[in-house]
């Protein structure tokens, strides 16, 4: 992948290689303009420019955050194999650029909703590693106090509405959040994420129709990792051009492995929907893991394909190369960041392991906001019952 068309403005505060990475003072005027790997393809709309403005500190933070997410998902893999995580575990490694690029273009007043591959979106929205691992292990310190599990992470204060296990359901829900944003005149938008598998769901088109009718500030983001569980997109969709499937709703196809392209598209989409109603963003991305931890991911795709993507398009590696090409940090400094991030993850896991399982009383909490003094029962209702406050 060639790194052509790179420009850079020199200022008096251009960082030197001798300054340590973490204490380096990076001037905000130290901006860079970088071209996306490929141009945007669009449907019923003029695409945004390929030239993305960023800063050194933004690129470094992209690297750090994506490296953290990568490390966290790989650690989750090990925890699952050690049987500390149970049930379902859907990992996001390979797709980090979508979470990070999107987050960089929006604020916490904007909302995000996704399906079950939600760990990294949670982290991007301000969730902590401790809450992540504790929730995965079903502990009290988890973001859902151990009651949700991998597929049900939420961070409402950060504008993250979960975490949903039913394929496609999150899209009408996301349009509903956008409805509320418009109703409350909030000038904010909602990103409703879904996969290429969910893209064929009828309720998606029902919700899109209403979003378009009512001009809702809804951005539908198809994270197209090309496989709906074990079914390749060409086997599931007559038209896998997901960005075009909105018909009267404009769409943009984005290289989802290029964090700057994702940032640019998200910024563009936010501006668009605040004035014009919904838009579809198709992120061309890839997951290295199988659909979930019970899927090896190699029965329906070749190992060459997986390693090929890793070589050519890995989102973390791309940012590393950019940083090095622009002399924003040395290789060693970036390696140190990765070591730091690994330690952070390991520390969080250790701490999460210390977190206890929820108290048995939690069996009966949060069924209702207002329990009205009714009774709820355990398996043996004469043995285990509770009054809901």
């Amino acid at each position, binding site marked *: 992948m060639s790194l052509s068309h790179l420009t850079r403005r020199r200022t008096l505060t251009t960082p030197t290689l001798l300054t340590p990475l973490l204490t380096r003072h990076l001037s905000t005027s130290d901006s860079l303009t970088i071209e996306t790997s490929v141009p945007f393809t669009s449907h019923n709309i003029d695409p945004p420019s390929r030239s993305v403005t960023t800063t050194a500190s933004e690129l470094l933070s992209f690297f750090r955050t994506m490296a953290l997410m990568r490390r966290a998902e790989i650690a989750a893999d090990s925890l699952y194999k050690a049987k500390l995580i149970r049930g379902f575990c859907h990992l996001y490694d390979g797709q980090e650029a979508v979470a990070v690029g999107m987050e960089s273009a929006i604020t916490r007043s904007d*909302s995000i*909703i996704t399906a079950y591959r939600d760990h990294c979106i949670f982290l991007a929205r301000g969730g902590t590693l401790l809450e992540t691992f504790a929730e995965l292990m079903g502990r009290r310190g988890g*973001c*859902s*106090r*151990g*009651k*949700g599990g991998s597929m*049900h992470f*939420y*961070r*409402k204060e950060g504008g993250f*509405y*979960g*975490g*949903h*296990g*039913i394929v496609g*359901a999150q*899209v*009408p*829900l*996301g*349009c*509903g*959040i*956008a*409805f*509320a*944003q418009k*109703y*409350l005149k909030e000038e904010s938008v909602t990103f409703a994420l879904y996969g290429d598998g969910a893209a064929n769901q*009828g*309720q998606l*088109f*029902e*919700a899109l*129709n*209403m979003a378009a*009718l*009512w001009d809702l500030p809804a951005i539908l983001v198809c994270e197209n990792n090309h496989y709906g569980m074990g079914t390749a997109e060409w086997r599931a969709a007559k038209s896998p051009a997901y960005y075009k499937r909105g018909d009267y709703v404009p769409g943009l196809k984005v290289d989802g492995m290029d964090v700057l392209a994702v940032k640019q598209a998200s910024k563009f989409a936010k501006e668009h929907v605040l004035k014009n109603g919904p838009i579809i963003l198709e992120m061309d991305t890839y997951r290295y893991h199988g659909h979930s931890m019970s899927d090896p991911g190699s029965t329906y795709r070749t190992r060459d394909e997986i390693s090929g993507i890793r070589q050519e398009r890995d989102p973390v590696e791309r940012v590393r190369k950019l940083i090095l090409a622009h002399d924003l940090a040395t290789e060693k400094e970036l390696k140190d960041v990765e070591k730091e991030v690994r330690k952070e993850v390991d520390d969080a896991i250790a701490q999460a392991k210390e977190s206890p399982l929820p108290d048995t009383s939690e069996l009966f*909490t*949060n*069924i*209702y*906001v*207002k329990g*009205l*003094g*009714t*009774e*709820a029962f355990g398996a043996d*209702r*004469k043995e285990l019952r509770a009054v809901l406050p």
Partner: protein
Amino acid sequence: MSRTLLQRARRAAFASVLERLQKLGCLQNTTRTYASSSKEITVREALNTALYEEMAADPKVFLIGEEVGEYQGAYKISKGLLEKYGPERVIDTPITEAGFTGIAVGAAYKELRPVVEFMTFNFSMQAIDHIINSAAKSNYMSAGQLTVPIVFRGPNGAAAGVGAQHSQCYAAWYGSCPGLKVLSPYSSEDARGLLKAAIRDPDPVVFLENELLYGESFPVSDEVLDSNFVLPIGKAKIERLGKDVTITAYSKMVGYALKAAEILEKDRISAEVINLRSIRPLDRATINESVRKTNRLVTVEEGFPQHGVGAEICASIVEESFEYLDAPVERIAGADIPMPYAANLERLAVPQIEDIVRAAKRTCYRSVP
């Protein structure tokens, strides 16, 4: 002319009932005194005024569904609301239940207070994933971060001659689901008080109305007409005190049970009629207390018998008040068949007053089983 006579007769009847109740010395859970009221409103008016008032009180309340706006409501329940509150708060949707229910639940996540109208609850099956998985369970799965102050309402159960796909009662299905509250009004007072309570409630509420009750009038006191009138969720109402057999019912069947009680009275069987009002939470305490007094129980519902509301009530009695039963519990329910169209078959598919009377007599060993 006859209407005034009727009103006077009703008032006299109420006064004598009141007298008898006072003699019995128990006025808990009983009919409020209507002696001072002369106003009657239909269930339709009750629901309409409840919606009107709750939308006035809280700008976050909005109505969404098919034909709720310009058509004034498929059953005219939302008449006048579009004109008063505008298209931002009274929203006509395309015929896409899964989509608009999901949108409404999402809006509730963001702290609006949607009232979703299903033209009938048969169509709610297209949206049932959102009712159960997106609404009912979210509070629990998120450990309290996402709460869902939403109401799903519409006509439920059999109408007249609408056939199998338009006649099912969903009380048992929704009533089994933790995280939901399920209400079913009978009278205008029920309709007003329970709908207002449902809209004010911070949890998802399924509100099961009945098309054939919309046009029926019931007397209401000034208290009921007050804009702050609410009924408690989870509390049944004893519509008629009795001592020989308890009859539980909800929605339209309450009317049938009351008529059955009048017939039983002539045979000197005193039936206590309980209007459940709330399917979930079920007022087990009131039902059990009643059966401990009467020792006999007939459950009445329009829905399918297997795994129905009556089955749950029977189980509750067997678990909590077994020694008090003097006869097996009787269940009167809709027939175990898809609803037929022909009038004679339809009549046989739905409980009739004589079925309730017969079952009550069986519990009293007064008829051949």
